[in-house]
Protein backbone atom coordinates (compact mmCIF):
# COMPACT_ATOMS: atom_id res chain seq x y z
CA UNK A 1 0.00 0.00 0.00
CA UNK A 2 1.43 3.38 -0.95
CA UNK A 3 1.26 6.40 1.32
CA UNK A 4 -1.37 8.07 -0.84
CA UNK A 5 -3.83 5.22 -0.19
CA UNK A 6 -4.09 6.29 3.43
CA UNK A 7 -4.42 10.00 2.74
CA UNK A 8 -7.80 11.66 3.18
CA UNK A 9 -9.28 14.25 0.88
CA UNK A 10 -11.20 17.35 1.85
CA UNK A 11 -14.56 18.22 0.31
CA UNK A 12 -12.65 20.61 -1.98
CA UNK A 13 -10.27 18.04 -3.48
CA UNK A 14 -11.83 18.24 -6.96
CA UNK A 15 -11.65 22.05 -6.87
CA UNK A 16 -7.92 21.90 -6.10
CA UNK A 17 -7.36 19.50 -8.98
CA UNK A 18 -9.38 21.67 -11.36
CA UNK A 19 -7.35 24.75 -10.38
CA UNK A 20 -4.04 22.96 -10.99
CA UNK A 21 -3.19 22.85 -7.30
CA UNK A 22 -0.08 20.87 -6.38
CA UNK A 23 -1.25 18.36 -3.81
CA UNK A 24 1.02 17.10 -1.05
CA UNK A 25 0.42 15.06 2.09
CA UNK A 26 -0.20 17.32 5.07
CA UNK A 27 -1.69 16.33 8.40
CA UNK A 28 -3.07 13.13 6.89
CA UNK A 29 -4.78 14.91 3.99
CA UNK A 30 -3.88 15.59 0.37
CA UNK A 31 -3.62 19.37 0.48
CA UNK A 32 -2.66 22.05 -2.07
CA UNK A 33 0.77 23.44 -1.26
CA UNK A 34 0.44 25.90 -4.14
CA UNK A 35 -1.55 26.78 -7.26
CA UNK A 36 0.08 29.57 -9.32
CA UNK A 37 3.11 29.84 -7.04
CA UNK A 38 3.83 30.60 -3.40
CA UNK A 39 5.10 34.16 -3.90
CA UNK A 40 2.27 35.14 -6.24
CA UNK A 41 -0.28 33.78 -3.78
CA UNK A 42 1.45 35.55 -0.90
CA UNK A 43 1.21 38.79 -2.82
CA UNK A 44 -2.49 38.25 -3.52
CA UNK A 45 -3.21 37.86 0.20
CA UNK A 46 -1.18 40.92 1.22
CA UNK A 47 -2.49 43.17 -1.58
CA UNK A 48 -5.92 41.79 -2.39
CA UNK A 49 -7.22 38.46 -1.08
CA UNK A 50 -6.49 34.74 -1.01
CA UNK A 51 -8.84 31.77 -0.74
CA UNK A 52 -7.70 28.86 1.43
CA UNK A 53 -9.04 25.36 2.06
CA UNK A 54 -8.35 24.61 5.73
CA UNK A 55 -10.69 21.66 5.99
CA UNK A 56 -7.80 19.45 7.10
CA UNK A 57 -7.88 21.20 10.47
CA UNK A 58 -9.99 19.31 12.98
CA UNK A 59 -13.22 20.82 14.25
CA UNK A 60 -14.48 19.51 17.57
CA UNK A 61 -17.75 20.72 19.06
CA UNK A 62 -18.13 20.90 22.84
CA UNK A 63 -21.50 20.96 24.60
CA UNK A 64 -22.64 21.48 28.17
CA UNK A 65 -22.55 24.00 30.98
CA UNK A 66 -19.25 22.66 32.20
CA UNK A 67 -17.18 23.39 29.09
CA UNK A 68 -15.59 26.65 30.28
CA UNK A 69 -14.41 25.30 33.66
CA UNK A 70 -13.30 22.00 32.16
CA UNK A 71 -11.33 23.65 29.33
CA UNK A 72 -9.88 26.34 31.60
CA UNK A 73 -8.22 23.57 33.61
CA UNK A 74 -6.51 22.17 30.50
CA UNK A 75 -5.28 25.35 28.81
CA UNK A 76 -3.17 28.44 29.48
CA UNK A 77 -5.48 31.21 28.24
CA UNK A 78 -8.77 32.26 29.80
CA UNK A 79 -11.92 30.58 28.50
CA UNK A 80 -14.53 31.42 31.14
CA UNK A 81 -14.11 35.13 30.42
CA UNK A 82 -14.86 34.76 26.71
CA UNK A 83 -17.94 36.64 25.59
CA UNK A 84 -20.60 34.95 23.48
CA UNK A 85 -19.49 34.86 19.81
CA UNK A 86 -15.90 35.60 20.77
CA UNK A 87 -12.93 33.62 19.40
CA UNK A 88 -9.70 33.19 21.34
CA UNK A 89 -6.30 31.59 20.75
CA UNK A 90 -5.29 29.03 23.33
CA UNK A 91 -2.79 26.28 24.11
CA UNK A 92 -3.32 22.87 25.70
CA UNK A 93 -0.28 22.21 27.90
CA UNK A 94 1.23 19.04 29.34
CA UNK A 95 2.42 18.61 32.95
CA UNK A 96 5.92 19.76 32.00
CA UNK A 97 4.58 22.99 30.53
CA UNK A 98 5.05 21.79 26.95
CA UNK A 99 2.28 22.09 24.38
CA UNK A 100 -0.14 19.38 23.28
CA UNK A 101 -1.50 21.77 20.66
CA UNK A 102 -2.30 25.40 19.96
CA UNK A 103 -5.93 25.96 19.08
CA UNK A 104 -8.78 28.38 18.62
CA UNK A 105 -11.92 28.34 20.77
CA UNK A 106 -15.14 29.87 19.43
CA UNK A 107 -17.90 30.51 21.98
CA UNK A 108 -21.32 29.99 20.41
CA UNK A 109 -24.77 30.38 22.01
CA UNK A 110 -25.37 26.65 22.43
CA UNK A 111 -21.89 25.13 22.08
CA UNK A 112 -18.19 25.75 21.63
CA UNK A 113 -16.14 25.10 18.53
CA UNK A 114 -12.57 24.01 19.06
CA UNK A 115 -10.24 24.01 16.03
CA UNK A 116 -7.05 21.98 16.40
CA UNK A 117 -4.09 21.40 14.10
CA UNK A 118 -4.51 18.59 11.57
CA UNK A 119 -1.22 17.04 12.65
CA UNK A 120 -2.52 16.80 16.23
CA UNK A 121 -6.11 15.83 15.49
CA UNK A 122 -5.85 12.19 16.59
CA UNK A 123 -3.75 12.96 19.64
CA UNK A 124 -6.05 15.77 20.73
CA UNK A 125 -9.25 13.78 20.28
CA UNK A 126 -7.84 10.99 22.45
CA UNK A 127 -6.55 13.46 25.03
CA UNK A 128 -9.86 15.34 25.33
CA UNK A 129 -11.76 12.12 25.84
CA UNK A 130 -9.29 10.91 28.47
CA UNK A 131 -9.70 14.21 30.27
CA UNK A 132 -13.46 13.88 30.16
CA UNK A 133 -13.68 10.80 32.37
CA UNK A 134 -16.40 12.31 34.55
CA UNK A 135 -18.45 13.38 31.54
CA UNK A 136 -18.20 17.13 32.23
CA UNK A 137 -18.78 17.90 28.57
CA UNK A 138 -20.12 16.27 25.45
CA UNK A 139 -17.59 16.07 22.59
CA UNK A 140 -18.44 15.72 18.91
CA UNK A 141 -15.73 15.11 16.34
CA UNK A 142 -16.50 16.91 13.05
CA UNK A 143 -13.05 16.31 11.53
CA UNK A 144 -13.49 15.68 7.83
CA UNK A 145 -17.25 16.21 7.74
CA UNK A 146 -17.12 19.97 8.39
CA UNK A 147 -15.14 22.15 5.98
CA UNK A 148 -13.25 25.39 6.62
CA UNK A 149 -12.72 28.01 3.91
CA UNK A 150 -10.70 31.15 4.67
CA UNK A 151 -10.78 34.42 2.75
CA UNK A 152 -7.81 36.52 3.84
CA UNK A 153 -6.57 39.90 2.70
CA UNK A 154 -7.55 43.57 2.54
CA UNK A 155 -10.33 42.81 0.01
CA UNK A 156 -11.86 40.04 2.16
CA UNK A 157 -14.69 42.17 3.54
CA UNK A 158 -15.69 43.43 0.10
CA UNK A 159 -15.78 39.84 -1.18
CA UNK A 160 -17.48 38.08 1.73
CA UNK A 161 -19.88 40.68 3.16
CA UNK A 162 -22.27 40.87 0.16
CA UNK A 163 -22.71 37.08 0.28
CA UNK A 164 -23.76 36.98 3.93
CA UNK A 165 -27.19 37.38 5.51
CA UNK A 166 -25.73 39.27 8.45
CA UNK A 167 -23.54 42.33 8.88
CA UNK A 168 -20.04 40.91 8.64
CA UNK A 169 -18.40 44.22 7.73
CA UNK A 170 -18.87 45.52 11.27
CA UNK A 171 -17.93 42.20 12.90
CA UNK A 172 -14.97 42.73 15.23
CA UNK A 173 -11.64 40.92 14.88
CA UNK A 174 -11.75 37.59 16.73
CA UNK A 175 -15.54 37.51 16.86
CA UNK A 176 -17.96 35.31 14.93
CA UNK A 177 -21.63 34.79 14.13
CA UNK A 178 -23.87 32.09 12.71
CA UNK A 179 -25.61 32.89 9.47
CA UNK A 180 -25.46 32.02 5.80
CA UNK A 181 -22.81 32.64 3.15
CA UNK A 182 -24.00 32.26 -0.44
CA UNK A 183 -26.96 30.34 0.96
CA UNK A 184 -24.92 27.88 3.01
CA UNK A 185 -25.35 27.65 6.79
CA UNK A 186 -22.07 28.85 8.23
CA UNK A 187 -20.18 29.97 11.24
CA UNK A 188 -18.61 33.17 9.99
CA UNK A 189 -15.55 34.22 11.98
CA UNK A 190 -13.25 37.20 11.63
CA UNK A 191 -10.15 35.13 12.35
CA UNK A 192 -7.12 33.98 10.39
CA UNK A 193 -3.50 32.96 10.31
CA UNK A 194 -2.02 35.35 7.77
CA UNK A 195 -1.62 38.70 9.52
CA UNK A 196 -4.33 40.19 7.30
CA UNK A 197 -7.97 40.99 7.87
CA UNK A 198 -10.28 38.23 6.74
CA UNK A 199 -12.84 35.58 7.49
CA UNK A 200 -12.90 31.89 8.25
CA UNK A 201 -16.08 30.20 7.08
CA UNK A 202 -17.04 26.94 8.78
CA UNK A 203 -19.55 25.05 6.66
CA UNK A 204 -20.80 21.55 6.05
CA UNK A 205 -18.52 19.61 3.73
CA UNK A 206 -21.42 19.11 1.30
CA UNK A 207 -21.82 22.89 0.95
CA UNK A 208 -18.11 23.62 0.56
CA UNK A 209 -17.58 23.13 -3.22
CA UNK A 210 -20.43 25.47 -4.20
CA UNK A 211 -19.29 28.11 -1.69
CA UNK A 212 -15.69 27.82 -2.89
CA UNK A 213 -16.77 28.36 -6.51
CA UNK A 214 -19.06 31.28 -5.62
CA UNK A 215 -16.29 33.00 -3.66
CA UNK A 216 -13.77 32.56 -6.49
CA UNK A 217 -16.25 33.88 -9.03
CA UNK A 218 -17.45 36.84 -6.95
CA UNK A 219 -13.93 37.67 -5.80
CA UNK A 220 -12.28 37.57 -9.19
CA UNK A 221 -12.72 41.27 -9.84
CA UNK A 222 -11.29 42.15 -6.41
CA UNK A 223 -8.25 39.98 -7.19
CA UNK A 224 -9.09 36.92 -5.09
CA UNK A 225 -6.83 33.96 -5.88
CA UNK A 226 -6.69 30.44 -4.47
CA UNK A 227 -3.75 30.16 -2.08
CA UNK A 228 -2.07 27.05 -0.75
CA UNK A 229 -0.37 25.97 2.43
CA UNK A 230 3.01 27.16 1.14
CA UNK A 231 1.86 30.78 1.00
CA UNK A 232 0.08 30.36 4.32
CA UNK A 233 3.33 29.32 5.98
CA UNK A 234 5.18 32.40 4.66
CA UNK A 235 2.28 34.67 5.70
CA UNK A 236 2.06 33.30 9.24
CA UNK A 237 5.83 33.45 9.72
CA UNK A 238 5.95 37.10 8.65
CA UNK A 239 3.06 37.79 11.04
CA UNK A 240 5.01 36.17 13.90
CA UNK A 241 2.49 33.39 14.43
CA UNK A 242 3.76 30.05 15.73
CA UNK A 243 3.32 26.77 13.86
CA UNK A 244 2.95 23.67 16.00
CA UNK A 245 5.91 21.34 15.52
CA UNK A 246 8.25 24.30 14.98
CA UNK A 247 7.85 27.14 17.52
CA UNK A 248 5.69 24.99 19.82
CA UNK A 249 5.86 21.30 20.72
CA UNK A 250 5.44 18.84 23.59
CA UNK A 251 8.97 19.90 24.64
CA UNK A 252 8.59 23.64 23.99
CA UNK A 253 6.41 25.64 26.36
CA UNK A 254 4.20 28.59 25.38
CA UNK A 255 6.81 30.79 27.10
CA UNK A 256 9.67 29.37 25.02
CA UNK A 257 7.50 29.61 21.92
CA UNK A 258 6.92 33.33 22.35
CA UNK A 259 3.29 33.00 23.46
CA UNK A 260 3.67 34.38 27.00
CA UNK A 261 0.84 36.83 26.25
CA UNK A 262 -1.58 33.89 26.11
CA UNK A 263 -0.50 32.40 29.47
CA UNK A 264 -2.81 33.54 32.27
CA UNK A 265 -0.99 32.69 35.48
CA UNK A 266 -3.84 34.22 37.49
CA UNK A 267 -6.04 31.24 36.59
CA UNK A 268 -6.40 29.08 39.76
CA UNK A 269 -5.08 25.85 38.26
CA UNK A 270 -4.36 24.32 34.88
CA UNK A 271 -2.27 21.46 33.55
CA UNK A 272 1.39 22.49 33.55
CA UNK A 273 0.89 25.64 35.63
CA UNK A 274 3.52 24.76 38.24
CA UNK A 275 6.05 23.92 35.50
CA UNK A 276 5.40 27.25 33.78
CA UNK A 277 5.59 29.02 37.17
CA UNK A 278 9.05 27.54 37.68
CA UNK A 279 10.12 28.54 34.14
CA UNK A 280 8.95 32.10 34.73
CA UNK A 281 10.73 32.31 38.09
CA UNK A 282 14.05 31.01 36.76
CA UNK A 283 13.66 32.84 33.43
CA UNK A 284 16.62 30.95 31.98
CA UNK A 285 14.84 28.89 29.34
CA UNK A 286 15.76 28.93 25.66
CA UNK A 287 13.23 30.95 23.68
CA UNK A 288 12.09 31.83 20.18
CA UNK A 289 13.74 34.86 18.62
CA UNK A 290 13.02 36.51 15.29
CA UNK A 291 15.99 36.77 12.93
CA UNK A 292 16.47 38.89 9.84
CA UNK A 293 19.21 37.40 7.67
CA UNK A 294 21.78 39.65 6.09
CA UNK A 295 22.39 37.87 2.79
CA UNK A 296 20.45 36.07 0.10
CA UNK A 297 21.14 32.56 1.40
CA UNK A 298 18.03 30.96 2.90
CA UNK A 299 18.12 29.31 6.32
CA UNK A 300 16.26 26.06 6.99
CA UNK A 301 14.79 24.28 10.00
CA UNK A 302 17.53 22.71 12.14
CA UNK A 303 20.45 24.88 11.01
CA UNK A 304 22.78 25.80 13.91
CA UNK A 305 22.84 29.36 15.28
CA UNK A 306 26.00 30.88 16.79
CA UNK A 307 26.88 33.94 18.82
CA UNK A 308 30.60 34.37 18.24
CA UNK A 309 32.10 30.90 18.67
CA UNK A 310 29.32 29.60 20.86
CA UNK A 311 26.39 27.60 19.52
CA UNK A 312 23.33 29.22 21.05
CA UNK A 313 20.49 27.43 19.30
CA UNK A 314 18.88 26.36 16.04
CA UNK A 315 16.52 27.56 13.34
CA UNK A 316 12.85 26.54 13.72
CA UNK A 317 11.14 28.19 10.72
CA UNK A 318 12.59 30.23 7.87
CA UNK A 319 11.52 31.79 4.60
CA UNK A 320 12.01 34.52 2.13
CA UNK A 321 9.77 37.29 3.44
CA UNK A 322 8.43 39.55 0.68
CA UNK A 323 6.63 41.73 3.24
CA UNK A 324 9.80 42.21 5.31
CA UNK A 325 11.84 44.11 2.74
CA UNK A 326 12.22 40.89 0.75
CA UNK A 327 14.80 39.74 3.32
CA UNK A 328 15.08 36.17 4.46
CA UNK A 329 13.73 35.79 7.98
CA UNK A 330 13.69 32.97 10.52
CA UNK A 331 12.63 31.99 13.98
CA UNK A 332 15.31 30.37 16.13
CA UNK A 333 15.22 28.70 19.53
CA UNK A 334 18.17 30.34 21.32
CA UNK A 335 19.46 31.14 24.81
CA UNK A 336 17.89 34.00 26.75
CA UNK A 337 20.93 36.25 26.19
CA UNK A 338 21.04 35.53 22.46
CA UNK A 339 17.33 36.32 22.13
CA UNK A 340 17.84 39.97 23.12
CA UNK A 341 16.68 42.29 20.36
CA UNK A 342 19.63 43.66 18.42
CA UNK A 343 21.93 40.70 19.10
CA UNK A 344 24.17 39.83 16.16
CA UNK A 345 24.06 36.09 15.45
CA UNK A 346 25.34 33.75 12.75
CA UNK A 347 23.64 30.86 11.03
CA UNK A 348 25.69 27.96 9.74
CA UNK A 349 24.60 27.03 6.22
CA UNK A 350 26.48 24.19 4.50
CA UNK A 351 29.62 24.91 6.54
CA UNK A 352 29.64 28.70 6.08
CA UNK A 353 28.35 31.19 8.63
CA UNK A 354 26.05 34.02 7.59
CA UNK A 355 25.03 37.02 9.70
CA UNK A 356 21.58 37.59 11.15
CA UNK A 357 20.16 40.10 13.57
CA UNK A 358 17.60 39.50 16.31
CA UNK A 359 14.49 41.63 15.84
CA UNK A 360 11.18 41.88 17.66
CA UNK A 361 8.24 39.75 16.49
CA UNK A 362 6.10 40.03 14.46
CA UNK A 363 8.24 40.74 11.41
CA UNK A 364 5.18 42.15 9.65
CA UNK A 365 2.18 44.07 10.94
CA UNK A 366 -0.56 45.28 8.64
CA UNK A 367 -1.08 49.03 8.57
Amino acid sequence: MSASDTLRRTALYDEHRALGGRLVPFGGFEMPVQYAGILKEHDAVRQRAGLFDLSHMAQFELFGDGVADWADALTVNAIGTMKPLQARYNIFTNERGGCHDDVLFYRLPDRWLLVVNASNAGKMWTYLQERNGRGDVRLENRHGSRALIAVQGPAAVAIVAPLCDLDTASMKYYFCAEGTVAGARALIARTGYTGEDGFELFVDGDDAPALWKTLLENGREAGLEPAGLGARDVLRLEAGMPLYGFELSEELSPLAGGQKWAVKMNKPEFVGKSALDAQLAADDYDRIAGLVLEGRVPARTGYAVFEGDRRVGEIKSASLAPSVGNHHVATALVTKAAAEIGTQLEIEIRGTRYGAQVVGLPFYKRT
Partner: protein
Amino acid sequence: MAVPAGLLYSKEHEWVKLDGDVATVGITDYAQNSLGDIVYVELPRVGASLTQFGSVGVVESVKAVSDLFTPVGGEVLGINDALENDAAPVNRDPFGDGWMWKIKLADTSQTSALLSPEQYEALIAEAAH
Protein backbone atom coordinates in the same frame (compact mmCIF):
# COMPACT_ATOMS: atom_id res chain seq x y z
CA MET B 1 6.50 21.72 -20.30
CA ALA B 2 9.05 23.06 -22.78
CA VAL B 3 11.78 20.67 -23.96
CA PRO B 4 13.65 22.62 -26.66
CA ALA B 5 15.25 20.74 -29.53
CA GLY B 6 18.99 21.07 -30.05
CA LEU B 7 19.81 20.50 -26.37
CA LEU B 8 20.85 17.44 -24.42
CA TYR B 9 19.34 16.53 -21.05
CA SER B 10 20.23 14.69 -17.87
CA LYS B 11 18.04 12.46 -15.71
CA GLU B 12 18.56 15.03 -12.94
CA HIS B 13 16.74 17.64 -15.08
CA GLU B 14 19.65 19.74 -16.28
CA TRP B 15 20.02 20.82 -19.90
CA VAL B 16 23.26 21.09 -21.91
CA LYS B 17 23.85 23.29 -24.91
CA LEU B 18 26.97 22.24 -26.79
CA ASP B 19 29.22 24.57 -28.73
CA GLY B 20 32.24 22.49 -29.76
CA ASP B 21 33.80 21.34 -26.48
CA VAL B 22 32.12 24.07 -24.43
CA ALA B 23 28.78 23.40 -22.78
CA THR B 24 26.25 25.81 -21.25
CA VAL B 25 24.24 24.23 -18.43
CA GLY B 26 20.98 25.07 -16.70
CA ILE B 27 17.95 23.38 -15.20
CA THR B 28 14.95 22.45 -17.29
CA ASP B 29 11.48 23.96 -17.43
CA TYR B 30 10.21 20.81 -15.75
CA ALA B 31 12.73 21.28 -12.93
CA GLN B 32 11.93 24.94 -12.29
CA ASN B 33 8.23 24.20 -12.35
CA SER B 34 8.60 21.32 -9.87
CA LEU B 35 10.71 23.44 -7.52
CA GLY B 36 8.35 26.42 -7.52
CA ASP B 37 9.59 29.93 -6.73
CA ILE B 38 13.38 29.79 -6.72
CA VAL B 39 14.96 32.18 -4.22
CA TYR B 40 18.65 31.26 -4.23
CA VAL B 41 21.19 29.52 -6.43
CA GLU B 42 24.68 28.46 -5.33
CA LEU B 43 26.87 27.84 -8.39
CA PRO B 44 30.28 26.17 -8.79
CA ARG B 45 33.37 28.41 -8.78
CA VAL B 46 34.95 29.56 -12.01
CA GLY B 47 38.02 27.42 -12.63
CA ALA B 48 36.70 24.50 -10.58
CA SER B 49 37.17 21.06 -12.05
CA LEU B 50 33.89 19.15 -12.03
CA THR B 51 33.21 15.44 -12.37
CA GLN B 52 30.32 14.40 -14.60
CA PHE B 53 27.09 13.89 -12.60
CA GLY B 54 28.76 15.23 -9.43
CA SER B 55 26.92 17.54 -7.02
CA VAL B 56 28.25 21.06 -7.70
CA GLY B 57 25.81 23.48 -6.11
CA VAL B 58 22.32 24.01 -4.78
CA VAL B 59 19.09 25.55 -5.91
CA GLU B 60 16.66 26.67 -3.22
CA SER B 61 12.97 27.30 -3.61
CA VAL B 62 10.75 28.87 -0.95
CA LYS B 63 10.08 25.40 0.40
CA ALA B 64 13.17 23.28 -0.22
CA VAL B 65 16.87 22.87 -0.95
CA SER B 66 17.90 20.72 -3.93
CA ASP B 67 21.32 19.71 -5.20
CA LEU B 68 22.57 20.80 -8.59
CA PHE B 69 24.41 18.12 -10.57
CA THR B 70 26.60 18.80 -13.55
CA PRO B 71 25.56 16.81 -16.61
CA VAL B 72 29.11 16.98 -18.01
CA GLY B 73 32.54 17.14 -16.36
CA GLY B 74 35.39 19.54 -17.00
CA GLU B 75 36.60 23.00 -16.06
CA VAL B 76 34.12 25.80 -15.21
CA LEU B 77 34.71 28.68 -17.63
CA GLY B 78 32.03 31.04 -16.35
CA ILE B 79 28.90 31.32 -14.23
CA ASN B 80 25.73 33.38 -14.43
CA ASP B 81 26.64 35.84 -11.63
CA ALA B 82 23.35 37.71 -11.95
CA LEU B 83 21.53 34.77 -10.36
CA GLU B 84 23.30 35.33 -7.03
CA ASN B 85 21.26 38.46 -6.41
CA ASP B 86 18.12 37.47 -8.27
CA ALA B 87 17.31 33.85 -9.01
CA ALA B 88 13.97 34.65 -10.65
CA PRO B 89 15.30 34.19 -14.23
CA VAL B 90 15.61 30.46 -13.50
CA ASN B 91 11.82 30.32 -13.17
CA ARG B 92 11.09 32.84 -15.90
CA ASP B 93 13.51 31.76 -18.59
CA PRO B 94 15.23 28.50 -17.63
CA PHE B 95 16.77 27.90 -21.08
CA GLY B 96 17.82 31.55 -21.59
CA ASP B 97 18.58 34.14 -18.88
CA GLY B 98 18.37 31.39 -16.28
CA TRP B 99 21.48 29.58 -17.57
CA MET B 100 23.87 28.58 -14.76
CA TRP B 101 27.41 27.70 -15.81
CA LYS B 102 29.67 27.18 -18.84
CA ILE B 103 32.08 24.28 -18.77
CA LYS B 104 34.92 23.08 -21.01
CA LEU B 105 34.31 19.37 -21.47
CA ALA B 106 37.11 17.13 -20.23
CA ASP B 107 35.97 14.50 -22.68
CA THR B 108 33.34 15.08 -25.37
CA SER B 109 32.31 11.41 -25.33
CA GLN B 110 30.57 12.14 -21.99
CA THR B 111 27.61 13.42 -23.96
CA SER B 112 26.69 9.87 -24.95
CA ALA B 113 25.43 9.41 -21.36
CA LEU B 114 22.90 12.23 -21.84
CA LEU B 115 19.34 12.13 -23.15
CA SER B 116 17.94 13.45 -26.43
CA PRO B 117 14.91 15.82 -26.22
CA GLU B 118 12.66 12.87 -27.14
CA GLN B 119 14.15 10.67 -24.43
CA TYR B 120 13.87 13.47 -21.88
CA GLU B 121 10.25 14.12 -22.79
CA ALA B 122 9.51 10.46 -22.21
CA LEU B 123 11.25 10.69 -18.82
CA ILE B 124 9.16 13.61 -17.57
CA ALA B 125 5.97 12.14 -19.00
CA GLU B 126 6.64 9.05 -16.90
CA ALA B 127 7.43 11.16 -13.81
CA ALA B 128 4.03 12.82 -14.14
CA HIS B 129 2.27 9.48 -13.52
